[in-house]
């Protein structure tokens, strides 16, 4: 069992990390961490517009605009180096986590490994032992971000492990929108991305977090994320992975600690041949009247998806709903939906809805009767299946989300 990290000295934290260095994760295929290198060339700060057209295109696909149009700030980390860090709105902070720990003592005391246990598995262990920066994004109390902050973690060198640790803090009464993407350079054959993300949404604050993952066929990905939401806070997370990936396993957890706290976790997943995705969403409703929605739309086209969801109701008058919908396109592909409801108080309202299947022939014929060929009909149905309009998401980000889905169509259809 992993244990709480409160009041640990740096030395104690390291010792716990050390102990967990061979601890396999409960879910997902095991990765031999020694297959990936720590030796990475340092990269200088750059102007994003000086990147090659191909690299700029890859950033844009992951939602990161190299021109920084309509952005409050930008953070781009390539491999282990910060290549761009900008902030354009007062009251918002964009740092790398190394800087943040130096600048503020309280980051380590209050936030560092406080939502995610350092000894959860060998990946959290590696992120502490071989930590390679990550972003620190913060909205000061009462500050509302006009435009989203964009953040990108980019793998440019072949065979490396990127072990980032991100901290996001939305202080009391503030509002922050983040779009974050991960992408890889065209010549990267294999790499490992380990990403720790700890989110803290304070009283009455609102955070929307839209993450677009554009990996490649030989990349392994192990994000470890957790959020803590205080009274009246809102944490909205959208996760999109509709490009090939070798294996991805994550099960982010949101703890609603304050009353009336709300979270919505949406994920849109595609598994192409040889891709394995094991993705879940867990919400722990600890305070009265808190609300959670966990929704996933999964498409297996030759690959395998485990779509998990877990709602834990511990307080009165909480309401939470879980929805897993899976579509199997083509003859091969597996979707395994595992919705779990866990009521620990009599006055909870937990529900779930799960379905897995292929496209109904009747739906295809309905569209064909309106003049669409079979292929066009399937495309329209798939687009409809993935057309998730997300409440509370700024239109600008919805546009990026829609674009990411369109970019993924070539793998689905």
């Amino acid at each position, binding site marked *: 069992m992993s244990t709480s990290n409160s009041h640990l000295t740096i030395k104690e934290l390291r010792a716990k990390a050390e102990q967990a260095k061979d601890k396999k994760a409960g879910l997902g295929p095991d990765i031999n961490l020694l297959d990936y290198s720590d030796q990475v060339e340092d990269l200088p700060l750059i102007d994003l517009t000086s990147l090659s057209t191909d690299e700029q295109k890859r950033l844009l696909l992951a939602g990161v605009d190299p021109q920084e149009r309509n952005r409050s700030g930008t953070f781009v980390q390539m491999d282990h180096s910060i290549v761009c860090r900008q902030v354009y709105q007062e009251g918002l902070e964009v740092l790398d986590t190394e800087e943040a720990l130096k600048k503020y003592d309280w980051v380590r005391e209050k936030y560092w490994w406080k939502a995610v246990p350092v000894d959860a598995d060998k990946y959290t262990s590696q992120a502490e032992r071989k930590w390679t920066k990550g972003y620190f994004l913060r909205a000061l109390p009462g500050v509302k971000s006009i435009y989203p902050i964009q953040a990108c973690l980019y793998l440019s060198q072949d065979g490396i492990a990127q072990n980032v640790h991100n901290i996001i803090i939305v202080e009391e009464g503030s509002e922050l929108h983040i779009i974050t993407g991960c992408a890889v350079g065209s010549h990267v054959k294999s790499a490992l991305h380990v990403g720790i993300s700890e989110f803290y949404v304070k009283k009455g604050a609102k955070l929307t977090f839209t993450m677009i993952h554009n990996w490649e066929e030989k990349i392994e990905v192990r994000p470890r994320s957790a959020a803590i939401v205080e009274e009246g806070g809102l944490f909205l997370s959208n996760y999109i992975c509709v490009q090939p990936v070798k294996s991805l396993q994550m099960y982010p957890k949101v703890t609603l600690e304050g009353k009336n706290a709300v979270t919505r976790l949406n994920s849109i997943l595609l598994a192409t041949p040889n891709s394995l995705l094991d993705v879940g969403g867990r919400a722990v409703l600890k305070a009265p009247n808190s609300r959670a929605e966990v929704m996933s739309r999964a498409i297996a086209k030759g690959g395998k998806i485990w779509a998990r969801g877990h709602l834990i109701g511990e307080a009165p008058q909480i309401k939470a709903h879980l929805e897993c919908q899976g579509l199997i396109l083509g003859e091969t592909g597996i979707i395994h939906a595992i919705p779990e409801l866990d009521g620990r108080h009599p006055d909870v309202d937990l529900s779930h809805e799960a379905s897995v299947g292929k496209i109904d022939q009747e739906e295809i014929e309905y569209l064909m009767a309106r*003049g669409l060929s079979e292929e066009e009909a399937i495309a329209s149905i798939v687009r409809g299946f993935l057309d998730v309009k997300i409440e509370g998401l700024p239109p600008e980000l919805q546009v990026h989300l829609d674009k990411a889905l369109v970019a993924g169509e070539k793998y689905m259809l």
Partner: protein
Amino acid sequence: MLRIENLRVNIGEKEILHDINLEIEEGEIHVLFGPNGSGKTTLLMTIMGFPNYRVLEGKIFLKGEDITHLPPHERAKRGIGISFQRPPTIRGLKTRKMAELANLCSDETANIDEIASNLNLEGFLDRDINYGFSGGELKRTELLQLLAQNPDLVLLDEPESGVDLENIALIGEAINCLLEKDISCKERRLRPKKSSLIISHTGYILDYVNADKGYVMCEGSIGCSGQPHELLDTIRKLGYEECIACQLQIPI
């Protein structure tokens, strides 16, 4: 417009339609009566070309072209449109999008908002197609799509079933609009006329639509044909049992 010759159709291993012959001229509206399970819907689905309805023998011609082996979308593009009796729900696909897709078959750009407004469907355009719609709403949504598609031959499967009295006139008006019966004679003379084959179990639709010819279908065959109101009167008086009995003795 439509000519059907000696058509025999199977669903699975079972022969459902036997030796159907039918001809609908340009501008004509024909009505197909018949008891439940007599093969009316099968005939419409076969004209539309759905693969589960396998043609064993016979031919279907649209405007002189043999379409017997064309897939449904090719038939839609050539001018056949159909309203489904029980249309499926497609989650995430909006009613507006569906109408826009149907409109791709037409040379004219449809004003979808206006059509929806005429059908009292304004609030439905941004909803998932057919999701949670009542019986009457489904029928009107089918007509919305057909009006956007603007076909030359309109196949309607029980357009009035499940529709409340208040909306039945609206459905009638929409059908007349679809068949361009609402425009002036002069205007109508300038363009190709629309034709239709309408299934009606009850015949109520005849109060709103001026049909030219009626058929009674029993057990997969067309038993008799004639003036639609006269046929309906007989059916109302004597019931379909009479048609079945009559047809078994003297098939026409």
